[in-house]
């Protein structure tokens, strides 16, 4: 977390430069990467969107939503249903809006109560959506699953890049704003936050719903790559588990944590999962357990943690074994 709220001019320039370079790399990738790898890159960006938007709400507040898959799936089905009816950008907006609406409902019902009800409700939400969609499709509509017309891989890459950029910008500006401060205060001590004038329920509900927009949008853009979807494919618990794993692995507290986690694990997922299947998912589960236990601040927290350990070690050596005053009792 940015303690002082500002960085030196040089560091800012370096970071801005790297971001520009990265964007250029991604934008030109289709020219030399080939179709398959372009799809892999698009997938990685999809995971970036999911991980960042999950961390947007669950990171600061500590309210762990287990429902990203539900909102993502809504996006997928929105595309499957509307692909011939509306232009692609409009479908993205509609997908985002529908995800927003569902998240708003879930939030209004559960976020005014203890956090456990939020967890209970979001855990099964993907099953709820899967069954509902199946019912409407198979029983009322007499069909099971739909074809999704594949779109140009390059266009999908750019679109997903656009969604990713939008997600990151939203996450960045929310973090810096008073609402980001409010979310942190809710996670730190919700009762105190309320007593200092924070309308905790409203802020939680709105920010949770906003984070769902991007998940829905990512779903819309992913659907053409799947080519055929049914309720099982669209609403799969993987799309809850993987983004959470990526965000936690990368580091929930920082903006770039989930990005790094999504890039690294998303790449591994796309390239290795097909070959190693069950072992792979097992490994991912173990990684999540280990990271929660031993690396709670994720990969990005590793550097400060090592620095702190080094500092304490050298201080102890310098003082020749004298006990160090503990600031934190």
């Amino acid at each position: 977390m940015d303690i002082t709220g500002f960085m030196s001019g040089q560091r800012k320039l370096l970071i801005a430069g790297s971001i520009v370079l990265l964007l250029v790399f991604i934008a030109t990738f289709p020219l030399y990467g080939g179709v398959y790898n372009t799809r892999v890159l698009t997938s990685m960006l999809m995971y970036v969107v999911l991980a960042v938007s999950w961390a947007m709400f669950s990171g600061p507040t500590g309210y762990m939503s287990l429902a990203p898959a539900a909102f993502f799936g809504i996006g997928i089905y929105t595309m499957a249903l509307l692909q011939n009816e509306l232009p692609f950008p409009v479908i993205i907006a509609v997908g985002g809006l529908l995800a927003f609406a569902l998240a708003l409902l879930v939030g209004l019902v559960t976020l005014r109560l203890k956090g456990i009800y939020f967890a209970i409700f979001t855990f099964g939400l993907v099953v709820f959506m899967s069954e509902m969609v199946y019912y409407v499709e198979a029983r009322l509509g007499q069909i099971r699953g739909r074809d999704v017309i594949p779109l140009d891989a390059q266009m999908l890459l750019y679109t997903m890049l656009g969604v990713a950029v939008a997600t990151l910008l939203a996450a960045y500006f929310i973090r810096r704003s008073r609402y980001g401060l409010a979310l942190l205060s809710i996670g730190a001590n919700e009762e105190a936050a309320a007593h200092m004038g924070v309308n905790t329920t409203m802020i939680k509900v709105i920010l949770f719903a906003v984070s769902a927009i991007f998940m829905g949008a990512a779903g819309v853009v992913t659907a053409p790559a799947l080519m055929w979807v049914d309720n099982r494919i669209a609403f799969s618990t993987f799309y809850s588990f993987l983004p959470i794993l990526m965000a936690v692995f990368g580091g929930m507290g920082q903006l770039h944590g989930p990005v790094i986690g999504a890039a690294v694990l998303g790449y591994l997922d796309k390239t290795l999962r097909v070959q190693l299947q069950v072992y792979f998912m097992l490994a991912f589960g173990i990684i999540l357990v280990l990271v929660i236990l031993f690396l709670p601040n994720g990969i990005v927290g590793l550097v400060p943690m090592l620095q702190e350990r080094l500092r304490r070690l050298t201080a102890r050596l310098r003082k020749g074994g004298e006990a160090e005053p503990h600031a934190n009792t």
Partner: protein
Amino acid sequence: MPILEGQDVTKYFGGLAAVSNVDFHVDQGEIVGLIGPNGAGKTTLFNLISAAFPLSSGEIRFKGQKLNGLKPHQICKMGVSRTFQETKIFANMPVLQNVLVGAFFGSANRVSGADAAREASQALEVVELSAMGATPVKDLTLVNQKRVEVARALATEPELLLLDELMAGLNPTEISEAMELVTRIRDRGITIFMVEHVMKAIMGICGRIMVLHYGEKICEGTPQEIVCNKQVIEIYLGEEADAAS
């Protein structure tokens, strides 16, 4: 002119009355103390005023407006702010961000970023913590953590400040400094209602004192009147006698 009044305030937890038919009032500009043995209901009364939980019966009014049914954030925006017995600071956040939460959200109207920053630094000046804006609150001493809580509450622009055991755990020097701080705050036009166990502070700065015992108000008056009150002496001397035996 009472800025805060309560009538017949009662709170039951299960079958037990933590606060029972308490009438009270605090006038504008006063520093009123609330004392009583542990478990007397003092913090419960504060929690009822700030709406941490609802009343079982009775009424509390701030500036003539009923507080029943309102939520804590609404009461804060009306002008009532507080600190907590077990300091509820935002531990991992820096001092300045802690106070900024109060600055941004505590006023009735929307505050600009610049105004909030100004409020926050003013509040930090009052508690004399301006130099520590960037320090994470969890790294501070207890005294300073309590001051951050006060600054955070001040940043909400309160007209009434509820202080819950501000002096607990402080040494004599720190207590004197805290007493000065409270008086300084009152001199800025903020009415103060404080729960305290530290007699030196109560006697030193409170204009009026209320005594609670087993949830009931047993008397109130000036420090001199309270000290001479037979019931109060019994409660406290009785405690001392128990402690001595």
